[in-house]
């Protein structure tokens, strides 16, 4: 078990999300920076999609009640374990009673804490992820609060032989504010000028953004047609343009269907960057081909596979 001492701004239990229930209107949920969650899990010997804790903007503290392996990935928040520095991207063996404290992030937005055995909240509809909109999953379907206690599962891989009882680190993915985008089905319904502006604008991430979607501020995108679209399936990464011409990037908690024109889709391999770019900063979209997108995703998967081999090949 572990106890949340200081819950921070928005901390939730997340795994790799729900699949198979979209046609019932149930969102995907899950970690916004999936590679960071995967790497944290691999470091502590978990299957990569186990549930961990997603911490937004640091300022978080937790106490462990059992000896365990832990790892922190994603945003670097000057973390300390009982006052000694703890590096992100490394695994540590913690003793019962020790406290992990995160300050404000130096770089990035979201940190992921994994513990060997994973956070063992009930599996609901195939996942332990918190659905904040429908209020289920995670811990009672809500944001974690001070004093919350989270159960820990049984470790799958045992890392407790002497050779391995030392901290070890891996390389993490770096994030970029140039995001690769595939043109969307309604791209050509926007004026020539707006299509150019889409690629040329420095889009500012509005503070009015959340796990459902990131709102962007910049040049107004003008659609040349005013025909309403019939409601259709949408996915994390889809860039919608509502009537005000300011795009919205859909993320893990987005609803399953929508009706706004889709000007583009962020490639799956670049989605994690959005989890880490601080709100208020700007991003740019870069056009990309299907082949490039597929290659980028395969490359990312290989990177994570190699981490797993590096840790557990012997």
């Amino acid at each position, binding site marked *: 078990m572990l106890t949340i001492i200081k819950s921070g701004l928005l901390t939730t239990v997340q795994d790799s999300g729900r699949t198979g229930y979209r046609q019932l209107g149930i969102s995907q949920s899950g970690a916004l920076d999936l590679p960071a969650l995967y790497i944290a899990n691999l470091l502590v010997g978990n299957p990569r999609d186990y549930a961990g804790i997603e911490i937004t903007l640091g300022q978080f503290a937790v106490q462990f009640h059992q000896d365990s392996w832990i790892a922190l990935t994603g945003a670097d928040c000057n973390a300390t374990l009982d006052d000694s520095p703890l590096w992100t991207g490394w695994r540590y063996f913690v003793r019962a009673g020790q406290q992990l404290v995160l300050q404000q992030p130096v770089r990035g937005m979201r940190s992921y804490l994994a513990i060997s055995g994973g956070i063992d909240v009930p599996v609901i509809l195939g996942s332990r992820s918190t659905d904040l909109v429908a209020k289920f999953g995670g811990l009672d379907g809500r944001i974690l609060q001070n004093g919350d206690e989270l159960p820990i599962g049984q470790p799958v891989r045992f890392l407790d032989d002497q050779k391995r009882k030392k901290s070890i680190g891996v390389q993490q993915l770096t994030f970029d504010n140039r995001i690769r985008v595939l043109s969307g089905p309604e791209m050509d319904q926007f004026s020539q000028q707006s299509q150019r502006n889409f690629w040329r604008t420095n889009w500012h991430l509005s503070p009015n953004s959340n796990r459902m979607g990131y709102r962007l501020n910049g040049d107004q995108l003008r659609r040349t047609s005013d025909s309403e679209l*019939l409601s259709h399936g949408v996915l994390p990464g889809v860039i919608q343009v509502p009537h005000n011409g300011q795009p919205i990037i859909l993320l893990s908690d987005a609803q399953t269907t929508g009706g706004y024109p889709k000007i583009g889709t962020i490639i799956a391999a670049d989605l994690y960057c959005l989890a880490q770019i601080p709100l208020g900063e700007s991003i740019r979209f870069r056009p990309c081909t299907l082949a490039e*997108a597929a290659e980028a995703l395969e490359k990312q998967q290989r990177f994570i596979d190699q981490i797993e081999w590096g840790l557990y090949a012997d």
Partner: protein
Amino acid sequence: MNNKKIVSPDPHFYLLGEKAVVIAFSPPISLEIQRRIWALAKQLSGLDEVVEVVPGMNNLTVLLTYPQRQAAPIINKLKKRWEGSHAIEVPTRCIDIYVTYGKELGPDLPFVAKHCGMTEKQVVECHASSTYTVYFIGFQPGFAYLGDMPAALHTPRRAEPRLAVPQGSIAIGGSQTGIYPLVTPGGWQLIGQTQQPLFDPTAASPTLLQPGDTIRFIPNPEGVC
């Protein structure tokens, strides 16, 4: 289904990102097309290369297991599946929803009645006399997009959306009617409420309604009826 020939427009196909393919029809909305969408959805959801399917209004989004390097091969595959989907029949379920219309549970019933030039009783009669089809589910868990509301009941949305619509509210928004499964902000006119749970994430079948269901509203004697 009878055998009358229905002339349906050609669908368009496109990729949505590198891991989803879509078949979509332009308006006007057709129940005939929607029936084939449900059938196709059912057929595709069993395939290894398909993660899941999302029926929309006369369209279907298919989430794929692997990223596509080219658009044409997957689009051709979907086209073939669509062309072969004439024959499939999806069994439909009939679900009765018991509604207490009006009073505190349907605070906008007087407004709807006034707008439609009917008495409250007539609105309830009209709303409860029709059979509705669940075209698809979206917006939130178990929220059904229903077709076939009588035109006499079309009522514009509220100028000021409510911050919290009670769970189970039956509402009218423009030409549509629906049931709110969760407490949520909403701008539709509330005409009644049901006690039946629309969404229970711990149940084997988490939502009461599924695409393709037909539903009837049955007025409870406690309310306007």
